[in-house]
């Protein structure tokens, strides 16, 4: 536990060093080295980036071909059970214990994590009320709607009061109201325990997390506090042009300005800090392109994501 304290005092709940996970010949994670700080961290990446693989590896469900993973100060390879006792996991797809009502299911999960039966039952009631399923707690889980199933998965992950919560796409299939409520719950939980939120929905991560780790094709594309990643490295402008757009984008890249298409004919360009926006007009003039629309924009996590992925 001393190691745990020292590592956690460094502010990292999860540390990965050169972690590689293979499915046969396919490398799902390639020499990943990254630290997840305390608080809420978003694990971002497109489908197939390796997010779920990373979470399953952290739980000890997948064994890395190489590398070291430490969760809450313990080595995953050496103490997977001790780690799982202090980690809550909400899987991506529908999952429940068949034939049980919600309160029995959650209490059962508590007992599996080492809670005495009476405490597990009491805690199950408490957690089900917390996630908003208090009125439906005696219903069989199989009769739940998609949104309710997401909530019960959160409840079973919380019942044993973990120190770290791993959430894999927690808002999948939820309606807008339910999604907002789920994100509010995650924000509230993250005030008390560390959360890793895996998602490909950028606004979800942006609304619930302070830090982000972006995975792409099994490697870490970027990581750090969201505010820092969004803020200081570049200013963002929305631009609509008439003319040879492809040539214009290439010319911008040649002078060190990145851009990506947003929707329709509007592109977002990232002008590095310290350079004037005027350079955009100069490049446009040099290549006979008319600038039809120009507006300063607020950097978003989407920009961070797009730049990290080199889109």
């Amino acid at each position, binding site marked *: 536990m001393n190691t745990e304290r020292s590592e956690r005092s460094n502010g990292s709940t999860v540390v990965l060093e050169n972690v590689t996970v293979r499915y046969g010949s396919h490398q799902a994670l390639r020499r990943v080295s990254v630290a997840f700080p305390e608080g809420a961290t978003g694990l971002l990446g497109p489908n197939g980036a390796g997010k779920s693989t990373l979470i399953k590896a952290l739980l000890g469900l997948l064994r890395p071909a190489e590398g070291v993973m430490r969760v809450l100060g313990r080595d995953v390879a050496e103490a997977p059970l001790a780690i799982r006792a202090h980690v809550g996991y909400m*899987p991506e797809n529908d999952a429940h214990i068949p034939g049980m009502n919600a309160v029995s299911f959650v209490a059962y999960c508590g007992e599996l994590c*080492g*809670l005495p039966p009476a405490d597990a039952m009491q*805690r199950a009631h408490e957690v089900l009320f917390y996630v908003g399923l208090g009125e439906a707690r005696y219903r069989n889980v199989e009769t739940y709607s998609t949104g309710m199933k997401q909530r019960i998965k959160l409840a079973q992950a919380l019942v*044993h009061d973990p120190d770290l919560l791993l959430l894999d796409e927690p808002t999948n299939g939820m309606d807008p109201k339910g999604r907002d409520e789920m994100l509010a*719950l995650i924000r*509230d939980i993250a005030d008390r325990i560390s959360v890793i939120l895996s998602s490909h929905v950028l606004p979800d991560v942006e609304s619930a997390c302070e830090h982000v780790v972006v995975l792409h094709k099994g490697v870490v594309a970027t990581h750090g506090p969201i505010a820092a990643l969004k803020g200081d490295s570049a200013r963002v402008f929305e631009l609509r042009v008439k003319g040879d757009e492809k040539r214009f984008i290439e010319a911008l890249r040649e002078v060190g300005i990145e851009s990506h298409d947003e929707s329709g004919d509007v592109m977002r360009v990232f002008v590095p800090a310290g350079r004037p926006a005027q350079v955009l007009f100069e490049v446009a003039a040099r290549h006979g392109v008319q600038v039809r629309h120009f507006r300063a924009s607020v950097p978003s996590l989407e920009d961070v994501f797009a730049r990290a992925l080199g889109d």
Partner: protein
Amino acid sequence: MPIHDQGYRRYSGARILRARSWFVIARAGIIERLRERRFLALLLVAWLLFVVRAVQIYFGTTFVRASFFAPSEETFHGFLTQQRLFVFFITIYAGAGLIASDRQANALQLYLSKPITRHDYIVGKLATLAAFLIAVTWVPAMMLLMLQVLFSGSLEFVSTHPRLVPAITITAALQVALASMMMLALSSLSRSRRFAAMLYALVTIFAGTIERVLQTATGAAGWVLVSPQNTLLVITDALFGIEPEIPVTLALIAIMTLMAVCVAVLERRVRAVDVVT
């Protein structure tokens, strides 16, 4: 100021450092099954033969004129052999969905994300089914023996048949272990409890039929090894002092091999993550 904190509250109670997870799983499985009236009815029916044998023992030991009813080793051998029918039905009813239903509901990843091992999970599921099978094999057989002692008022029968208790215990243990492991392995192969039940029925019924056909056609007793149930009967016969059709070592090796195959199947199929390469 809020009158009640509705935010996330931490748990400050006790934790069992290394929970007996297999026991938690087995207990939950048994309770869930016992809630079903049809299953309770099946369990009651499985005890009818016990009642018949108990009446037989009562008359055989109490009334001299009915001494032809007096129990022998054959009484217990016959009882355990006849209980195979109920072992079959209970195995299908209580065992087919043990892993198949968990696979259908994606429950394996929930189980294995908790501080439990795959072995805890498998042992817990095995114990669920084994508990019911013990309740219709070893428990009634031993109770019949106890009734004999009670009705006769002496331990003479037990002392003159010293191999009876170990024979009952080993026979019941093998019946329970074989049925539980076969069913669990077959249940792990599918996401449908019905399909798993059909597989078990196929293996049990059709293997017996094939064995009889081959034995009739060739006249060779060795074909008994085709049927796991009849192979087990060879061992039961030997335990109760009846001359078996084939060497008992051969039957024992066949049963152990089958159990090893079941363990290998479970080892391969019970995983939180299905890796398709």
